[in-house]
């Protein structure tokens, strides 16, 4: 009886220990990444190709999501406001929601599935096929060679992709408004600018940058610590996506609490 009662707590304790150990090792890798920044000669020429990869991987999916989100936001706003609130509030809602929440978060989640998975799978394969060891023997610091360019590329590209997504989402909302909702462009733009603060943009970009950092470091972390062949690579990839998606949502709440 006592066992039945205590067992869940024991496994929770064990889970918490593992989590703490994982966070610790992730922190160590991240600290090493910062230290590895000094090997500019190693990572610099890899940065632009990585940025291109992040862009190619992510722009189509991010814009696709933003397009449909913008359309739906616009329609749902008008549905919600029926009569009670002036229609130009559709512009307020589309603009604010895309910028503050859906642009950064949906883009971040989509990219954790593309960029994060890609990083974890690639580095995981390199780990289990001893390519990371081979880098070491050729006197390349693996963190400077593999992690730094991926993390920097994500930090740079996530805000850019997010900005594009926000623009596309708002544009989709606007086209929907004038085509399907009998609104004029003037009304929509009026709503868009009514409560607009320059800080909204900063807020969106801070979020996107932090998401980029987390997705890349988490992908690298699981990739680097992969064990045991193709199956291990599969595990790492899945975990990288799951963990970075969760971290994005937690971080999103964290920024809302601290910055708003």
């Amino acid at each position, binding site marked *: 009886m006592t066992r039945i009662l205590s067992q869940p707590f024991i496994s929770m304790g064990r889970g918490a220990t593992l989590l703490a150990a994982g966070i610790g090792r992730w922190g160590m890798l991240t600290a090493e990444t910062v230290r590895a920044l000094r090997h500019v000669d*190693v990572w610099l020429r890899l940065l632009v190709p990585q940025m291109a990869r992040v862009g190619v991987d992510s722009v189509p999916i991010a814009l696709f999501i933003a397009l449909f989100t913008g359309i739906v936001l616009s329609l749902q706003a008008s549905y919600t406001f029926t009569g009670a609130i002036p229609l130009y509030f559709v512009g307020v809602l589309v603009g604010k929601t895309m910028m503050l929440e859906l642009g950064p978060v949906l883009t971040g989640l989509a990219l954790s599935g593309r960029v994060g998975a890609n990083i974890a799978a*690639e580095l995981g*394969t*390199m780990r289990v*096929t*001893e*390519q990371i*060891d*081979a*880098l*070491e*023997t*050729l*006197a*390349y*610091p693996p963190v400077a060679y593999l992690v730094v360019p991926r993390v920097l590329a994500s930090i740079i590209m996530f805000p850019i992709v997010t900005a594009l997504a926000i623009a596309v989402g708002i544009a989709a909302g606007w086209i929907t408004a004038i085509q399907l909702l009998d609104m004029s462009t003037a009304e929509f733009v009026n709503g868009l600018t009514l409560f607009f603060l320059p800080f909204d943009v900063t807020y969106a970009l801070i979020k996107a940058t932090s998401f980029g950092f987390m997705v890349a470091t988490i992908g690298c972390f699981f990739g680097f610590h992969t064990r045991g062949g193709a199956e291990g690579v599969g595990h790492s990839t899945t975990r990288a996506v799951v963990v970075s998606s969760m971290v994005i949502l937690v971080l999103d709440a964290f920024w809302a609490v601290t910055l708003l």
Partner: protein
Amino acid sequence: MSIVIRDLHKAFDGKVVLDGFEVEARDGETLVILGGSGSGKSVTLKHVVGLLTPDKGQVEVDGEVVSDLRREELFVLRRKVGYVFQFAALFDSMSLADNVAMGLRRQSDMDRKEIEERVEECLRLVDLDGFGPRAPSELSGGQRKRAGIARAIATRPQYLLYDEPTTGLDPVTRAMIDQLILRMSSELGVTGIVITHDIDSAFRVADRFAMLHEGRCRFQGTPEEIRETDDPVVRGFIEGRPELLENAS
């Protein structure tokens, strides 16, 4: 100019692999390490370049204790050592030529043209001339293995560690790789450790033999000595007679 392994201990998750292994590759000689599958030969070799750290004991290369080196010093040491991985470990994201050039780009002040020439020369040495632009995924197992050798020798290191360089190769290519190992040692004065299961090739390249058995050095000596030893474990291994091994222990 020697590699000295002293009282090396290593366990993984409580499973003891090395249990006081001692062996020495002296200046300019080629040491062949024999041992059954899973006996810890690859693990030993990884300690030499600091890819693994010993639980106890140490490896000395060039008079320096590998596990005591700071990271920067370790990279300096690694520039002197070429490592041929058991499964080649080629970088799949780049061509064969780029694989071979990797070490040169990092470790030498050669210009683009000199690097290209060196890469071609190394690919020719392993009979892969013309394969430079290919991707590793387009190669056969044996070709990958040879490309791995080309990458390891490209920087003309003072030390070469070969992890089963001839496994999976046809007899002609195998003899060619043996000759390459011999040339490295005679022309460049390389100090080498060769891990192999291939007894013929072992006798062709070895100055001295060591046998790793149950985590320790079971035998160390010259080719003549190993031929004449009456240790049943060593005899059983080189003659391929498991019954000797079973009766021994």
